């Protein structure tokens, strides 16, 4: 695996930020079932209070604020990863039922369930003998 694959990816800033911290792009897995789309994002350092999920029109934004990871009375002697906020946006299609989106956070992983709209769920069409 190349270094790029293992290191956190820093967001290229499209807009100027007020907080003077780096932002990273959380790694996500997306998979779909017949009923819903699941989005799983790695955001170590966040909990349910510091993570935000916003949906505006069809733009879904997930963001998380992480406190600076300094340890009291200790000095950093070796460092391989950096600590910063997270942000990533996704464009949703119309096939998502916006009112039923569910989000949970567990051990720094944000899990979104995006149910598919009722009318778009795959239907089995019964064939009648003529």
């Amino acid at each position, binding site marked *: *695996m*190349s*270094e790029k694959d*293992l*290191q956190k990816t820093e967001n290229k800033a499209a807009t100027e930020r007020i907080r003077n911290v780096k932002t990273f792009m959380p*790694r*996500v*897995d*997306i*998979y*779909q*079932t*017949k009923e819903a*789309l*699941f989005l*799983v994002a*790695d*955001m*170590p*350092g*966040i*909990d349910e209070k510091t993570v935000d999920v916003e949906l505006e029109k069809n733009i879904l934004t997930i963001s998380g604020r992480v406190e600076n*990871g*300094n*340890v009291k*009375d*200790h*000095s*950093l*002697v*070796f*460092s*391989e*990863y*950096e600590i910063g906020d997270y942000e990533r946006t996704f464009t949703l299609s119309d096939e998502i039922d916006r009112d039923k989106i569910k989000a949970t956070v*567990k*051990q*720094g*992983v944000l899990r979104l369930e995006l149910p598919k709209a009722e009318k778009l769920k795959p239907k089995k069409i019964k064939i009648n003998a003529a």
Partner: protein
Amino acid sequence: MFSPGIWRMKRFADSVPEIIDLQREINKLFTHVSQSTTPDYPAVNVWEKENSLIVMTELPGMDADDIDISVTGAVLTISGTSKSDPVKEGETYLRQERELGHFQRNIELPFQADPKEVAAKYEKGILTITLPRMKEDLPKKIKINV
């Protein structure tokens, strides 16, 4: 083999974290020139106080039971397996970026840690291991007899 070389960073022990950030940025510039080995997973940050060391690592979404930590002399070993969501038939991945699977990492400590006193905490996806120095390993003051 053992990694990382905490020793090499020793001279920065008293400096502010920004210096280390700067050093990393500079190293990044030359990465393609010198680096042939891949970085280890998971990445660790090491903090130091007089007689103890704190090792932090980001391991999002695991169960505490799936993480194994062991200390043998001056070597700390972190290993575990992160699992993906069980995918049933008819479910398809559209995107897979997360690191999943088995990992193991051996970290050489600058001193002998007391295995009985090692404490670990796992919250918000961050593993924090506190390693106090073994009492027998502490530097002893030697009195000079006149």
